[in-house]
């Protein structure tokens, strides 16, 4: 389907649903989510409406309520921006410092990546948009990975609780399998993202393997892993028997059993079967 001149991933409704209400909502969405749309509307609301097939009476109404309609862009922008600095404090600090936070937000909103009705999904939508758009990553190649690690903390904290299982064993065995906590994430980055801070938001380059998990207190925690330990845990996550996974990677069985027992004590692993 060809895009209209104003289109940003514009979705066309099937013919029977194109009504005046539909046209007005399409127009308003353009005004709210697209910086270019808002600029065009501010310059000439009647022309903005005409380009979007509105009738003359509706065009005139856009002009009458021009400033108030622009208020809605500010409100929507605030609503969508609000959760981001809390979830991405370091990314936010970095971009604010470079005076690019507003540009980043404009590009994010214009992408229309936020589709979930759940407000909490604004945060993962931001990471998805960074991944798809590669925005800012010429200048900061670590940006996506930094934002991802910041989001993972929120995801782990809020991940649905695991149903209690009485069937699981408390000690790992060579022929057993590992049952990880549902919130546990085996993470690999090309930057030391976990060392970035608001004071020093640019992580240094370096292969980094982390196991993120919700600990026994219900808090977010992570442990740094060796490349081998990360590969071993990845195999365990695929339900490979512990002994097989250790053998394939030439790891000492006693060492991996200790590793797994340690992670069970921390809350990253539910148990073994």
């Amino acid at each position, binding site marked *: 389907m060809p895009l209209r001149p104003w289109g940003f*991933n*514009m*979705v066309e*409704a099937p013919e029977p*649903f194109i*009504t*005046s*209400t*539909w046209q*007005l*909502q*399409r127009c*308003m*969405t353009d005004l*709210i*989510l697209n910086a270019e749309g808002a600029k065009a509307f501010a310059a000439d609301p009647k022309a903005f409406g005409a380009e979007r097939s*509105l009738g003359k*009476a*509706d065009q*005139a*109404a*856009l002009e*009458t*309520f021009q*400033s*108030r*309609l622009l*208020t*809605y862009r500010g*409100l*929507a922008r605030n*609503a*969508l921006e609000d959760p981001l600095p809390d979830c991405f404090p370091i990314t936010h600090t970095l971009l604010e410092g470079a005076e690019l936070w507003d540009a980043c937000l404009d590009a994010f909103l214009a992408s*229309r990546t*936020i*589709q*979930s*009705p*759940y*407000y*909490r999904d*604004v945060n993962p939508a931001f990471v998805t948009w960074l991944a798809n758009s590669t925005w800012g990553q010429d200048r900061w190649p670590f940006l996506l990975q930094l934002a991802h690690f910041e989001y993972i903390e929120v995801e782990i*904290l*809020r*991940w*649905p*609780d695991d149903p209690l299982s009485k069937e699981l064993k408390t000690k790992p065995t060579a022929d057993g399998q590992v049952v990880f906590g*549902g*919130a546990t994430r085996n993470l690999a980055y090309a930057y030391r993202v976990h060392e970035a801070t608001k004071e020093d938001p640019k992580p240094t380059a370096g292969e980094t393997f982390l196991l993120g998990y*919700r600990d026994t*207190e*219900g*808090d977010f925690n992570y442990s740094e892993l060796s490349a081998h330990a990360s590969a071993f845990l990845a195999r365990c996550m695929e339900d490979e028997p512990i002994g097989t996974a250790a053998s394939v990677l030439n790891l000492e069985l006693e060492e991996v059993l200790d590793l797994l027992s340690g992670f069970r004590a921390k809350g990253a692993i539910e148990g073994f079967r």
Partner: protein
Amino acid sequence: MNPFTGVGVGLRRPHLQQVAALASSPVPFWEIAPENVVGQGGSRHRQVMKILERDPIITHGLSMSIGGFDAWDRDVLENLKGFLKETQSPWHSEHLCWSSFGGATTHELLPMPFTRDSVRHTVERAKRLQAELPVPFLFENVSYYACLGVSEMSEKDFFAEVLEGADCGWLLDINNIYVNSRNHGFDAKEWLEGMPLERVQQMHIAGHTWYEDDQIIIDTHGAPVIDPVIELMQWVLPRIGRPVPVLLERDNEIPELEVLLAERVSLQKAYDDAFATVGVQHG
């Protein structure tokens, strides 16, 4: 005793730990958004669930975009239905507005055009949603800052026609009526007269913010309720003639729990006074 009367409070994240630790509920009822609870886990979620099991709850939705055109996500709808059954909410409410278009969500309460086409469209969507839900559905009147397109009727007539057409209940937000009356220059009491008050099942009350530069009041829920809004609540309650529950909303600049509960007590007194003067019994 019917718990759904008097003045309740919107349950908010900063207060969860403190409220969950209480031996009993400090309010007649809480209001909660299902979208903020379903599909979640962790310690905060456990605090919410503890409160939901202990205290009476009314649900209020934020994201169905009933005036919009996007199809509802089946999983979201099923989650909502399950939550309503689980919490035994007496009804479920949503705003008469739209918030998403073409798959993109704005998370803002956007105004409907005040037109016959818009009435027809919204009534049809509301009927479809009501048919899905296990509890009665209420529409909330919203604050609107601009008319979207040319109006064929007043906002008041638009809202009344949708309520009647969809045959659903009304969550009367008294602050929204006050905000609209100030922003659009009409008399709030005149707006309420002639409206189908028999459809009111619940009320919302909240604070707002005046922006001098833009000469506009925004429904921020970020300040205490002002006296004219409390007086409007007291004016309309006897006209409704039933002790419908009133919910104090606070979403920004959220104060300590004790401060919010003190405001609730003050509103409860105003609520009781409104009925005492006309001799209506409640409880």
